[in-house]
Every structure is written in structure tokens, then in C-alpha cells.
């Protein structure tokens, strides 16, 4: 691609932006999921959600550390996680959506897990060795996460009248955030040209196929395409992210650099 065609502010550090956005997705989702700890429907599920949150946090830490390294300005994972404002976060709108009821959380996880499978598959063969290595590990972990969320969506969708209705309502709400993960921008164009990462738009069909299979097993209707929302990748978020960050960052905001 022609770099001159892309906005200069994004392309000053495209590798940094690439690692950062996927780190942000995982960090925000880890924070959301950890809110379930001690509130899950049973002990096994409590452990599962806590463990999945930990997987996302671990991936976020590795990605943010790498984003800091390639930026070369000396920013650590902690500074990137705790020192940026809402507009500087580049996560998807999907991951910042509130937990809602259990069906809403599982619907969000299903859509995100299926996306992560495609994303990390596309990155596993890329020419950036650090990202490729992380991608292989992340893809293995995403398979387990998908197994977990798809099992729950099937159970709830094909369950009681109440669980079915709630699962359907959750998907109907979440569907507006399912275009955003596959949209291209200057960073994805750079990654395609320089690292050989296939643009995610090409993976959209496989994502849909994966999700459709779960929905039909769960006797759920695929939501119709209506309004689609996006903006997270360029820092334009829903009202929920600010509240999440306020809770996550308040200690470092109150006592900058605090360690214990």
C-alpha cells in the first residue's frame, strides 16, 4: 500500500498501534470478566471465568509490553494500561459492553472468542516473530475459550423458555458490534503489506460460519443486520469504557507510580 495515503498519526508507529489495539481488547475484556469472580452461577463456572480473565490479562500484558518496546519511548505495560485515557484506548466496542446477565456475558464471549480464533490464525504466520509466537499460543487458548462460550450459548439457547429468550435478547443487542472487528484501517493495511497478515475482512465468512453453527445448534435466530457501530479502534467509545477505566485506574491515578 502507499503509506502516504494513510493518516500520518497512525502510521508513525504502526507496529505499536497493532500490538496496542489487540492488547487493549484483551485488557478490557479481562477487567470485565474478572467482575464475575465470586458471582458466577456455580463454583466451576467461577473458576472458569476467573481463569479465562487471567488468560486475557496474560495476553494483554505480553502485547502491551511489546507495544511499549517497539514504541521505544520507555513506556511499560503498566504505564500503557494505567496511564492512558479513554480516547487513547483502541479496543473494540464489543469487549467494553457491560456483563449484563449471564447470557449477555456468554454471547459477548462467543462473538469475541470466534473473532480471536480468526485473528490469531491470521497472525500466526506473520513475519514479526514476536507476534507470530504470541499468536500461536493465543490461538490455542482461544480454542478453549470458544469451547466454553459455545457450550454455554447452546445450553442457554436450547434450554428453558426463559434462558432461550434471554440468550436471544443478548445476541440481538450484541450483533451491532460484530462488523467492527473486521473493518480495515491504515494499521491493518500496513500489517498486510509489511507483515503478511491477511486482512481480517477475508476472515469474516469463516467467523460467521463458526457462529452460525453454534446458533443453529442453540435454536437461536441469527440477528438481522441493523445499525452497526464502530469507532473503538480510533478511540471513539461507548459510554461504558470510561466507567470501567475509572475503576481500573483509580489507584494509579490517585497515587501515580504506586507499587506494593
Amino acid at each position, binding site marked *: 500500500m502507499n503509506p502516504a495515503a494513510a493518516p500520518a498519526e497512525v502510521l508513525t508507529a504502526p507496529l505499536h498501534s497493532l500490538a496496542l489495539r489487540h492488547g487493549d481488547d484483551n485488557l478490557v475484556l479481562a477487567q470485565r470478566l474478572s467482575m464475575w469472580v465470586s458471582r458466577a452461577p456455580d463454583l466451576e*463456572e467461577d*473458576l472458569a471465568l476467573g*481463569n479465562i480473565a487471567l*488468560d486475557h490479562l*496474560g495476553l494483554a500484558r505480553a502485547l502491551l509490553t511489546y507495544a511499549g518496546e517497539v514504541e521505544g519511548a520507555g513506556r511499560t505495560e503498566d504505564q500503557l494500561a494505567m496511564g492512558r485515557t479513554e480516547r487513547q484506548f483502541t479496543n473494540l466496542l464489543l469487549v467494553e459492553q457491560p456483563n449484563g446477565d449471564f447470557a449477555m456475558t456468554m454471547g459477548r464471549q462467543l462473538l469475541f472468542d470466534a473473532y480471536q480464533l480468526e485473528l490469531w490464525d491470521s497472525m500466526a504466520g506473520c513475519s514479526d516473530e514476536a507476534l507470530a509466537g504470541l499468536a500461536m499460543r493465543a490461538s490455542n*487458548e482461544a480454542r*478453549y475459550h470458544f469451547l466454553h462460550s459455545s457450550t454455554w450459548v447452546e445450553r442457554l439457547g436450547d434450554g428453558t423458555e426463559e434462558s432461550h429468550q434471554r440468550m436471544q435478547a443478548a445476541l440481538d443487542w450484541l450483533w451491532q458490534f460484530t462488523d467492527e472487528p473486521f473493518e480495515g484501517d491504515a494499521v491493518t493495511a500496513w500489517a498486510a503489506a509489511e507483515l503478511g497478515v491477511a486482512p481480517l475482512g477475508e476472515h469474516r465468512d469463516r467467523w460467521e460460519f463458526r457462529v452460525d453453527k453454534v446458533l443453529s445448534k442453540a435454536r437461536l435466530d441469527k440477528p438481522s443486520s441493523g445499525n452497526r457501530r464502530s469507532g473503538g479502534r480510533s478511540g471513539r467509545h461507548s459510554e461504558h469504557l470510561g466507567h470501567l477505566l475509572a475503576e481500573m485506574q483509580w489507584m494509579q491515578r490517585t497515587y501515580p507510580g504506586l507499587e506494593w
Partner: protein
Amino acid sequence: MDATHISGTRVVIALQALGSRETRVRRLLEAIPDPELPMLDLGDLGLVRDVHVEDGAVEVSITPTFLGCPALDSMRRSIREALVGDGFDQVEVRTVYSPAWSVEWISPAGRAKLRSAGIAPPGSARVCPHCSAEAIRVVSEFGPTPCQALSACRACGEPFTSIRDL
């Protein structure tokens, strides 16, 4: 001719000396226990990728198991302490992600240690660590640590944990 031969021998001896120092460091590191599964050491897990020694400085590369493994920071600390205790002034612990760690890397000795600790090792030939029956039921894919699942034996009924295949 002779001179070449002699200098060639010197190079070999120097390389052997260098190699042995790195081998010694590697042995030292591989004996460090895993903080969460202390019956295993870093050698059993296959975590130590590379050791590079230069004078008083040492650089160690490790590959993390699960990305979110909370034991990773503690392992890094133990490695640092062991090497400082061994007389190195400068210790650098690097993390390498490629190739990605997999349970295949757990050594046969490590698998035997897991089994005798009542934890089913990974792999297709999975048996109950209590009664050796080949009838295992996974109760939950997520267990007490990121690497373990909760399982139970259909034969003896005992619950136990197993190392997840990933």
C-alpha cells in the same frame, strides 16, 4: 600446518570451557521448582530456551507456559536470585514466545512426577492417577491453576486435576 592445528585445538578447548559454563547455568536453572506445581522443576517443563554467558553477565531466555500464568513473575525472580547467588553481577531474563510452549514439552520424568502427585499428565493415553483406569471424565475445563482441569474417574470415583492439553 602445525600452528593451524594448535590454534584450532585452542579454539575447541575455549569453546568447551564456554559450553560447560553455560551447561552449568542451565542445570542450575532447570533445578528451580515451579512455584505452583513444586514437584516439577523448570527442566521438567522445558522452559529454559537459551543461556548466554559473558564474563560476569548472563542472559537467560525462557518461554512462558500459559500466557496468563501468575507463576511467571515468581519464576523470573527465582532465576534472578539463583544466578546472583551463583556470582553473576548482571542477570537478564528474557521472555521468548516463539516457538510457543506446549504440553508436549513436559519431559517423561515430569509426567511421572505429576502422576505420583495425583495429577493426570497431558496426552491421549490418560489414566486415573489413583486407580489407573482409563475412564476419565472432565468435570470442568478450568481448574485451580490455568494449566489444570478438574476431572474425575468413572471407575473409582475419585476427583483429581489433570494438565490441560494445550
